[in-house]
C-alpha cells in the first residue's frame, strides 16, 4: 500500500508540474495575475507530493519491505537503521527521487520566499523550474520507478553496496544534489529573464542568494566526497581526477565564476549577458554531471546500473535543456541592454579576470573528462587522462588565479590603481616571502615548488587580512574606531575574506599532503615494529570481530612517539556476505593538522599482512579549507542586502512590471 501511495503521489506531482509548466507562462504573457499566482500554490503542492513520495520509499526501506524491487536490491534486514535510510539514495532510482525532491524544495523556496519578486518574473521562474521537474518526473516514472513490486517477496534483501555503508557517504549525495539542483534556480532565472527580454541589477540580487546557497552545499558535498574517498579507498589520496569527481568540480568552477560575475552585475549593472550565460552553463554542467554519473557511460562507484534507455533519456533531457536554453540565449541575449563601463584595471576587471580563469580551468577539466569518451566513440581507441594532464593544464591556471586573488577586493570599482594596490599588499608579499624562506629551511630542499606554494597560500591569507584592515582603516584611525568599523563592515566583505582564506588553507593542505607526506608499504608479522616519520608503530596482532551485517578482520597497532604510547590504531577489512564484497576501513589518527593513516592489504602465506602506512602532514586543511570557504559563503549570504525577503530600500514591491520594463 505504502509504495503505491508513493508512486501515486509522484504521478500527482507530475500532473501539477504540467500545469505549472504552462499556466504561469500564459499568465505572464497576458498579465493575468491569477494565472501567475497559480505557480505559487502548485510549487508548494508539488513539494508536498514529492516529499510524500520520498517518505513512502523511506518507510519501505525502514520496514525492509522486500516486495519492493528497489528495496530488495539495495537493503538488508540486518543493516543498521541509519544505512537503511540512506540506502534510499544509495541506488539509481532512489537518488533520482532525491534529485526531484530537492528540485521541489527549491521551487517551493522561490514560491514561499520570493514575495518581492516581480510577479511575471516569479511566474516564469517557477514555470521553467517545472519544465525541468516534468522532464525528471517522466524520467523516473518511465525508466527508473523505485516503487515497482516483485511478484513474490523474498525473505532477505541483497544488501547495499558495502562501500556505500559509511556515514560520510550517507550525507554526501544530499549535499551534492543541493548544490547541483540549487543551480537550477539560477538557470530558471536566466531563462525567465531571456523570455522577458529584460534584465537589471536587481535580477542579480535575487539570483545571488540562491546561487550562493547552492555553491555552499556543493563545496561541502565535494569536500565530503573527497574525504570519503581518502579514508575508504585505502590509498590515502584525496582527489583522483576521476571523471565522476570532475563532474562535480565543473559546476563548482563555473558556479564560483557565476557568484563573482553576479557581484559585478548587481553593483555596476555590467556583464549582464555574460552572467546569464554563466547561469545557463553552470546548470548545464550540473546536468552533464548527472548524465555522466547516471547513464553508465563511466564505470565507477556512482554508476549504479547501466541501462541504455536511461542514458538515452537523460541525453534527451540534456539536449533539450542545454540546446534549448542556448538557442534562446542566442536569440534573445542581443536584446538585453548593456550596462556600466569600466577600465580593464578595476574591481570589475579583476572579476572578469577571475571569470576568465575559472571558466578556462573548467574547460580544461571538461576536455580531460570528455576527450577520452569522444575518442573512444570515434576511433575505438581507449585512453586514460590522469593527474599528469591536470597538473600541467588546470594547475597553472589555478596558480595564476590564486595569485591574483588578493588584488581583486582591493581594487576600486570602475577604475583601479594597480600600483597603489601592490603597495598596499607589500606587507602581504613580505608575509609570503617569509613563509617561503621558513618552508624552504624546514623541508631541507625536498621540493622547490612546495615552499613557493606555501608562500602563495600565506600571501593570500595576509592579503585577505590587508583587505579587511584597509576597509577598517587600521593604523589610520585609532584602534578602537578601526575595530568598530571592522565589525560594521558589510558581511559580504567578511565573506569574501573568509572564503579566500579557505582557498589558501586548502592549498596548504594539498601541498603538505602531496609533497611532505611519507608512505611505506610493508609486510608485517605480529610483534614487528615499523618506523614512520618519527612514529613507531608496532603490530600487536589480528583479531576477528562481527558487525551487524559483516565480519571484520581487525589489525591492532600501538603507536609510540618518543618512547611514549600515544594511541592504538585499528585498521580493518570487512567482508559482507550478502554481496561477497569486502571493504577496507583505514585507521586514522590525528596529529595536529596531519594524520597517521593505516590500511590493510592481503594476508600472505607466511602469516604476514601487507600494510600501507602514511603520514600526511597538514592533510586536514584540505577539507577544513572547504568548510572555511563555506562559512565565507554563509557570511555573505547573511549580508542584509542579500537576505531573502528582506525589504530592499527604494524598490517598489513588484506588481508594476510595465514601469520596470522601461529601465
Amino acid at each position, binding site marked *: 500500500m505504502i509504495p503505491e501511495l508513493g508512486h501515486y503521489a509522484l504521478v500527482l506531482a507530475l500532473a501539477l508540474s504540467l500545469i505549472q509548466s504552462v499556466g504561469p507562462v500564459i499568465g505572464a504573457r497576458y498579465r493575468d495575475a491569477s494565472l501567475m499566482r497559480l505557480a505559487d500554490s502548485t510549487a508548494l503542492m508539488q513539494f508536498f507530493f514529492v516529499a510524500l513520495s520520498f517518505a513512502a520509499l523511506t518507510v519501505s526501506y525502514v520496514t525492509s519491505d522486500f516486495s519492493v524491487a528497489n528495496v530488495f536490491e539495495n537493503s538488508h534486514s540486518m543493516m543498521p537503521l541509519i544505512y537503511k535510510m540512506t540506502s534510499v539514495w544509495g541506488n539509481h532510482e532512489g537518488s533520482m527521487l532525491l534529485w526531484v525532491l530537492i528540485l521541489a524544495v527549491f521551487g517551493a523556496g522561490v514560491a514561499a520566499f520570493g514575495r518581492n519578486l516581480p510577479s511575471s518574473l516569479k511566474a516564469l521562474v517557477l514555470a521553467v523550474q517545472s519544465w525541468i521537474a516534468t522532464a525528471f518526473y517522466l524520467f523516473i516514472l518511465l525508466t527508473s520507478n523505485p516503487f515497482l513490486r516483485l511478484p513474490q517477496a523474498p525473505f532477505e534483501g541483497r544488501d547495499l553496496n558495502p562501500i556505500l555503508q559509511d556515514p560520510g557517504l550517507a550525507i554526501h549525495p544530499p549535499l551534492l544534489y543541493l548544490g547541483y539542483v540549487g543551480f537550477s534556480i539560477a538557470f530558471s532565472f536566466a531563462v525567465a529573464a531571456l523570455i522577458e527580454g529584460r534584465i537589471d541589477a536587481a535580477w542579480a540580487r535575487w539570483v545571488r542568494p540562491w546561487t550562493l546557497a547552492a555553491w555552499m552545499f556543493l563545496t561541502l558535498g565535494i569536500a565530503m566526497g573527497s574525504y570519503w574517498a581518502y579514508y575508504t579507498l585505502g590509498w590515502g589520496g584525496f582527489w583522483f581526477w576521476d571523471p565522476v569527481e570532475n563532474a562535480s568540480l565543473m559546476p563548482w568552477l563555473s558556479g564560483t565564476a557565476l557568484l563573482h560575475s553576479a557581484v559585478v552585475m548587481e553593483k555596476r549593472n555590467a556583464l549582464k549577458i555574460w552572467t546569464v550565460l554563466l547561469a545557463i552553463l553552470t546548470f548545464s554542467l550540473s546536468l552533464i554531471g548527472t548524465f555522466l554519473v547516471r547513464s553508465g557511460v563511466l*564505470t565507477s562507484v556512482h554508476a549504479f546500473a547501466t541501462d541504455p534507455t536511461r542514458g538515452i533519456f537523460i541525453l534527451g533531457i540534456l539536449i533539450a535543456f542545454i540546446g534549448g536554453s542556448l538557442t534562446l540565449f542566442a536569440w534573445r541575449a542581443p536584446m538585453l541592454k548593456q550596462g556600466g563601463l569600466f577600465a580593464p584595471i578595476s574591481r570589475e576587471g579583476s572579476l572578469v579576470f577571475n571569470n576568465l580563469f575559472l571558466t578556462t580551468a573548467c574547460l580544461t577539466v571538461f576536455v580531460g573528462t570528455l576527450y577520452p569518451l569522444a575518442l573512444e566513440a570515434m576511433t575505438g581507441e*581507449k585512453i586514460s587522462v590522469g593527474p*599528469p594532464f591536470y597538473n*600541467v593544464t588546470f594547475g597553472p591556471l589555478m596558480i595564476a588565479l590564486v595569485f591574483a586573488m588578493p588584488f581583486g577586493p582591493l581594487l576600486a570599482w570602475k577604475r583601479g590603481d594597480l600600483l597603489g594596490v601592490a603597495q598596499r599588499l607589500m606587507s602581504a608579499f613580505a608575509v609570503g616571502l617569509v613563509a617561503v624562506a621558513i618552508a624552504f629551511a624546514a623541508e631541507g630542499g625536498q621540493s622547490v615548488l612546495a615552499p613557493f606554494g606555501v608562500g602563495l597560500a600565506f600571501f593570500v591569507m595576509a592579503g585577505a587580512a590587508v583587505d579587511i584592515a584597509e576597509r577598517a582603516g587600521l593604523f589610520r584611525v585609532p584602534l578602537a574606531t578601526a575595530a568598530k568599523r571592522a565589525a560594521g563592515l558589510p558581511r559580504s566583505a567578511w565573506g569574501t575574506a573568509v572564503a579566500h582564506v579557505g582557498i589558501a588553507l586548502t592549498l596548504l593542505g594539498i601541498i603538505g599532503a602531496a609533497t611532505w607526506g611519507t608512505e611505506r608499504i610493508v609486510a608485517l608479522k605480529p610483534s614487528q615494529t615499523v618506523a614512520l616519520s618519527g612514529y613507531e608503530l608496532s603490530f600487536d596482532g589480528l583479531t576477528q570481530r562481527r558487525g551487524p551485517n559483516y565480519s571484520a578482520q581487525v589489525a591492532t597497532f600501538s603507536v609510540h612517539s618518543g618512547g611514549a604510547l600515544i594511541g592504538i590504531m585499528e585498521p580493518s577489512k570487512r567482508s559482507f556476505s550478502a554481496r561477497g564484497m*569486502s571493504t577496507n576501513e583505514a585507521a586514522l589518527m590525528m596529529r595536529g593538522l596531519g594524520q597517521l593513516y593505516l590500511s590493510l592489504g592481503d594476508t600472505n602465506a607466511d602469516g604476514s599482512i601487507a600494510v600501507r602506512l602514511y603520514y600526511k602532514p597538514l592533510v586536514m586543511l584540505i577539507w577544513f579549507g572547504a568548510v572555511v570557504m563555506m562559512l565565507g559563503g554563509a557570511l555573505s549570504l547573511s549580508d542584509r542586502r542579500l537576505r531573502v525577503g528582506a525589504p530592499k530600500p527604494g524598490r517598489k514591491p513588484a506588481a508594476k512590471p510595465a514601469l520596470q520594463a522601461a529601465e
Partner: protein
Amino acid sequence: MTRKQRRLILIGGSVGVLALAVGLVLNALSGSIVFFNSPTDVAEKHIAAGTRIRVGGLVKPGSVVRGENLRIRFEVTDGNHDVPVRFQGIVPDLFREGQGVVAEGKIEPGGVLDADTVLAKHDERYMPKEVVDALKKSGRWQEGSADGAGVAKK
C-alpha cells in the same frame, strides 16, 4: 579610453588566456595520456619500450608469483596472448587468478610491464569495462558472465 578600446583589451585578454589554455591542453594531451591495450594489441603493435600503457584482461591462472617485499609477478591474458607484469605493493582485495585486472605502467625492453598501478574489480558481479571489451575483441567473452553494478578503480 574609448568603449571600443576597452572591449578590445577585454577580448584580447580573453583570447590570450584561451590560447594559453588550448596550448597547455594540447601539450598535455600529446604527452600525458595513457592508451589502453589488450594483450593482443601489445603483441601486435610493437609498442616502444618506455611507453606508458594500460593493459587489461584476466589474471592468467597459475601465473601469480609472490616475492619478498610485496613484489608480485603475474600475467595478463585475453586468451590469445599474455603480457607479463611486475608490481611492487598491495594488489586490490579482489585480485585473483582468473579474474579481471587492469595494470598501468611502463613497458620494458623485454616486453614486461613494470606496473605502478593495478586495478581489479571491486564487486563479485562486476568486471572493468576495459577488460570486457578486450575479452570481447579476443572472442573469449561470454554474455551474462558479468552484470551491472560495481566499481572499477574505486
